[in-house]
C-alpha cells in the first residue's frame, strides 16, 4: 500500500508544481516517475516488486483508455466533419515516425534489441508489448521505450507544434496522439476536449497502423 500512497502523492505534487511553474518539465507524470524511481533506486527495490504492489492503480488504466470514447462521442459531429484530415494526418505521421525511428537507429548503429524495440515506440505500450513477439524485441524494453516515447512527446511536442505554426486544436491533438499515444493524450487533454479527442483518434490509428506494418514486415 505504501507504494500506491507514494505514487498518488508524487503525482499530486506534480500537479501542484505544474500549476506553479509554467514549464513543460513540470509534467505530473514525469515528476511522479522521477520521485518514485528515485525512491526505488535508493531502496534497492526492483521495478517488478513495485509493479505488483501498485496493481490496483494499473488496473484502472484499461477502463480509462476505454473512457476516451466519451470525449470522442461528445465531439462526434466535429470529428465526422474532419475525418479525412484526421485519418490522413494520423496515418502519415505515424508512418513517418516509425520510418524515422528505423532509419536513425540504423544510421546511429544502435544495438539489435534497441532497434527492434524502437520500431513500435509510436504505438501505445500494450501494442508494443504484444508486437514484441513479431519484432523479436525484448518485451519489457519495447514497452518501456514506447511509454517513454509518450512521455518525451508530451514534453516536447506541444512547444514544437506551436513553433512550426500548428494551431488547429484537432491537428495538435492528432499529432500528439499519433506518436505519443496515452501519455501524450493525457497532456493533449490539458489543451481542451477537442485536442484530447483528436489525440485519442491519433492513438487508435497508430495502434492499428503499427500493428499492420509489423505484421507485414513479419510476414515478409
Amino acid at each position, binding site marked *: 500500500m505504501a507504494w500506491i500512497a507514494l505514487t498518488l502523492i508524487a503525482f499530486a505534487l506534480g500537479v501542484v508544481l505544474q500549476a506553479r511553474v509554467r514549464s513543460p518539465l513540470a*509534467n505530473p507524470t514525469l515528476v511522479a516517475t522521477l520521485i518514485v524511481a528515485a525512491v526505488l533506486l535508493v531502496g534497492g527495490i526492483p521495478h517488478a516488486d513495485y509493479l505488483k504492489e501498485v496493481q490496483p492503480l494499473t488496473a484502472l488504466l484499461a477502463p480509462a*483508455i476505454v*473512457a476516451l470514447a466519451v470525449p470522442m462521442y461528445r465531439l*462526434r459531429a466535429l470529428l465526422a466533419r474532419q475525418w479525412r484530415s484526421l485519418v490522413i*494526418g494520423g496515418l502519415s*505521421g505515424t508512418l513517418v515516425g516509425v520510418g524515422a525511428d528505423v532509419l536513425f537507429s540504423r544510421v546511429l548503429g544502435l544495438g539489435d534489441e534497441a532497434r527492434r524495440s524502437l520500431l513500435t515506440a509510436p504505438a*501505445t505500450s500494450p501494442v508494443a508489448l504484444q508486437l514484441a513477439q513479431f519484432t523479436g524485441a525484448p518485451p519489457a524494453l519495447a514497452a518501456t521505450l514506447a511509454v517513454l516515447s509518450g512521455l518525451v512527446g508530451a514534453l516536447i511536442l506541444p512547444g514544437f507544434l506551436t513553433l512550426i505554426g500548428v494551431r488547429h486544436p484537432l491537428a495538435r491533438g492528432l499529432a500528439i496522439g499519433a*506518436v505519443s499515444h496515452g501519455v501524450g493524450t493525457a497532456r493533449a487533454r490539458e489543451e481542451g*476536449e477537442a485536442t484530447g479527442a483528436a489525440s485519442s483518434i491519433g492513438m487508435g490509428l497508430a495502434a492499428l497502423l503499427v500493428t499492420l506494418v509489423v505484421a507485414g514486415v513479419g510476414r515478409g
Partner: protein
Amino acid sequence: MTTPEPSTTARLSAPVRFVLGLGVLVGFSAAGQALVTVTGLPLPGSVVGLALLWAALGLKIVRLHWIADAADGLLGILGLLFVPATVGFIGYLSAGAEWGLWLLVMTAGLLLGGGVAGVLASRLARPEPPPTEA
C-alpha cells in the same frame, strides 16, 4: 444487460452513478480484451474496448449520462495511471550512455512524425468556424 429507465439512472446519486459508470467502462474493457483473445488480433484490448463503447454510445445501447462522471474522473487523472509503467525505465539503467542515442532517435521520430501529422491535418482540415474549446 438490463437497461434501466433513463429517468431512474439520471436521478442516481453521484457516487452511485460513478460506480455504475466504472462498471460499464470495466465491462467494455473486458469485452475488448475478450474479443482480442478470441480473434488473436495484436491490438490492445482497451483500444478495442474504446471502439466498442463508441459504437454502443452511437447506437444508444449505452447512455452518455451513465458513464460521463466515471469517464471524466478517470480521464482527469489519466497521467497518473501511466506512472507505474514509466518507472520501468529503471530496469534498463545499465544501458548507460546508450540511453542518449535511444532518446535521440525517439526524439527525431517524434518531431518528424508529429510534425507531419500536425501540418498535414491542419492543411487538410475543412474550413469551419474554429472549434471552440469552451
